[in-house]
């Protein structure tokens, strides 16, 4: 501890105004405050302050991301090993998973951090901890076959266009990680959808291996078929989709791991249970409503058991980690219910009515991000109506 202190004390002068590295002062401050919470007495009333700061707040999200991250690493390695015919023992699978996933995370953090740093230096404001979350969320939403340069481009778009041009953390209207993913989705659709992208290739020269996802399979259903039967035919039982032991985006396959994350977020109060519960309600209500219109001549999607929507695709990951981003979500508690519900409902509607985008959760979260100021506005107007004025 003292040794670390010494390093910072020795280096500080270079980063101070007039020093050789004065432009990198935000980087120095970010490093220093990572190791030492500054010992400052509060100067304004009240003179006591909660022990929680934004670093801790964001670390809780990172902690909640651990289950899907760790499972994602294992699963990515497993899927790749299986199709390459390599031994599926736990250690080697995990090592291969790390080999595939770590470069993406490193690129995401590295490139994103570069942009954060650049804007912090120009604006002379501190580097925000929010990026620790964005930089990890983003790679977890990508297919494992994504080229690193595309990942770099995606996180750049997410940080710069999704956040910094609005003024940085706290002022962005869209979730930066999802903005980056949406950019890649529309800019490089071949790399972000279809069957060949979900399993990483371990042996060069081999053609793309296809690993169908539950959503991809469901999209192929014909009138008169039942999606549950198609899924079961490819060994996608409800339970298997809940566990997430199948191909898909790195972090999003396991609804169970997302549930574990949700428990952490809700227990610590960092994530809003209203958004998550609202989202689940939205899926079940909309899915259930569509069930009423299901018939032999209808699209098979109408008859899908609504609980399947919860475990298919990225809904669980999206509603737990993306929708609960407090910055882009509404701030009023009733509005959070509506926001979550609409995300759930829209996810189902996009899946059912728009076969071009089998994954609806990304678009529905971004869409509702756009509406969250409106939800707050309406919520505040309703509150103020009840308030006895004091002017």
């Amino acid at each position: 501890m003292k040794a670390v202190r010494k390093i910072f004390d020795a280096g500080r002068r270079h980063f101070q105004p007039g020093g050789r590295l004065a432009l990198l002062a935000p980087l120095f401050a970010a490093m220093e405050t990572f190791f030492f919470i500054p010992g400052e007495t509060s100067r304004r009333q009240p003179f006591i302050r909660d022990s929680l700061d934004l670093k801790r707040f964001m670390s809780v999200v990172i902690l909640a991301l651990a289950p899907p991250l760790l499972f994602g690493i294992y699963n990515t390695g497993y899927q790749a090993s299986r199709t390459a015919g390599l031994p599926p023992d736990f250690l080697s699978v995990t090592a291969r998973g790390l080999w595939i996933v770590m470069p993406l995370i490193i690129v995401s953090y590295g490139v994103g951090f570069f942009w954060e740093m650049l804007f912090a230096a120009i604006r002379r404001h501190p580097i925000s901890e929010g990026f620790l979350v964005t930089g990890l969320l983003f790679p977890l939403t990508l297919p494992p076959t994504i080229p690193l340069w595309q990942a770099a481009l995606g996180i750049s778009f997410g940080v710069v266009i999704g956040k910094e041009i609005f003024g940085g953390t706290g002022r962005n209207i869209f979730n930066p990680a999802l903005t980056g993913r949406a950019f890649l989705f529309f800019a490089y659709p071949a790399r972000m959808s279809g069957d060949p992208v979900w399993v990483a290739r371990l042996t060069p020269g081999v053609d793309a291996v296809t690993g169908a996802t539950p959503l991809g399979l469901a999209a192929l259903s014909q009138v008169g078929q039942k999606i549950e039967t198609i899924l079961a035919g490819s060994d996608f039982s409800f339970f298997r989709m809940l566990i997430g032991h199948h191909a898909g985006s790195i972090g999003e396959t396991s609804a169970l791991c997302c549930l574990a994350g949700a428990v952490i977020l809700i227990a610590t109060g960092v994530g809003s249970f209203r958004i998550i519960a609202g989202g689940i309600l939205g899926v079940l209500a909309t899915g259930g409503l569509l069930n009423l219109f299901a018939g032999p001549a209808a699209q098979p999607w109408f008859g899908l058991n609504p609980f399947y929507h919860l475990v298919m695709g990225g809904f669980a990951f999206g509603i737990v980690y993306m929708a609960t981003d407090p910055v882009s979500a509404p701030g009023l508690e009733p509005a959070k219910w509506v926001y979550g519900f609409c995300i759930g409902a829209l996810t189902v509607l996009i899946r059912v009515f728009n076969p071009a985008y089998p994954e609806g959760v990304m678009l529905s979260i971004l869409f509702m991000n756009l509406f969250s100021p409106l939800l707050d506005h309406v919520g505040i107007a309703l509150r103020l109506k009840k308030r006895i004025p004091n002017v």
Partner: protein
Amino acid sequence: MITIRAKNGLDMNIPGQPDGPASRLMDMERVGLSPASFPHIRPKLLVKVGDKVRQGSILFADKRNPDIGFASPGGGTVESIDYGPRRAINAITIRVDREEAREDRGVLDRHQLAVLSRDALARHLMAGGLWPLIRSLPFRDIADPAFTPPAIIINLDTLDPFHAEPALYLDGSAGAFLFGLDALKRLAPAVYIVACRKEDTLPPEIRGLVTHRVRGRFPADDPGVFLYYTRASAAANRCWYIHGRDVVLLGKFLSSGVYPVKRLVSVSSPNGSRHVLSRLGAPLALLAPEVRNHDTHVTIAGGLWRGQVAGPNDYLGLYDAALTLLPAGNQPEFLGFLRPGRRKPSHWRAFLSALHNDPLALDAGRHGEERACVNCGSCAAVCPVDILPQFTLKSVLAGEIEEALAHGLLDCVECGLCAYVCPSKIELTFLLRQARESYYREQQAVGERP
């Protein structure tokens, strides 16, 4: 009796609540009075260094209403007048004579009080230096005697930690309280007596007079919170308020004609907490010697949440019933945000301390750096008067004062909870208060009654 359940707020389990009988500390060489401890006033000095004053002599008046006097906490000689920046008067120090002379304002009995006109009573209290005890919502300014408020709210309790319970300051003073109450009834058409904690410790003659019971966490004791829950229309917004212990002082003054200076103070420091029976204007360094170590300690006069930072040269102010000393919290913490935090006090459940309910010591550290608002909503979740501080602050920062007022800016009771819970360490309380003050000054400038 009407029971009100106040939502939100915050209760913390803080060690070191003072307990037991009060020790006595009355003899001191010097006492002092600081005009800066009164909100909004513009002091006009009426004494100079070397003047002889009596206990209860008027030291300065408020330029806005020169009838409102501020009385000397001791009899003796004006030893010094300290000026701060821009000639603001920091403190007037009086060297106390061995035999203190007292100003005699004349004894009133119950019958005389009943026939005295409202104006004459107000003038009597103003001349006696007691009027500043009565304050008005929403700006917490000293009450304007020319205005008849819709009601006066008497709060018996203080939920701000470390304050003495009503039973302690009412002990043996129930008669004075009732006399003060009679006087207050002459000033406003209604007087509400509000209790927060169990009423069974109150003296029986007062227990029966309690009109409202507010149940809830801190700051359910605040008159602003009481008003928020009880007002039926905007007409009730400009109520006056006074604390129960000050009603006792009113009664003592009216019945004896002498300016009462005796005060029960709760002194709490990491070295131990105690009640002290002392006097108004007592040097803080005498009440708690730790005040002198102001590098390692922060001294808060007037309560943990709402008090002001005081220095070793300050004196016990008119509104201060508690003196709280906290460790300064100015040591950097190695990898602080990664620690499990079993002993870290927090409103959030992000530390292991959420798993137990043991008392946790506080310090005055900021525990992090200021960041942008992430709209976490914790400020709104604790706000006792249902303001949405995050949105109100945004309208304040955008200069939309009308919008901020519509949000309830004037309902803000300045309890400090929003700034306490904010993970981004935004000075919510300070910024909202600043906005209220600038609105107040604007109103005064155009000559409107705020």
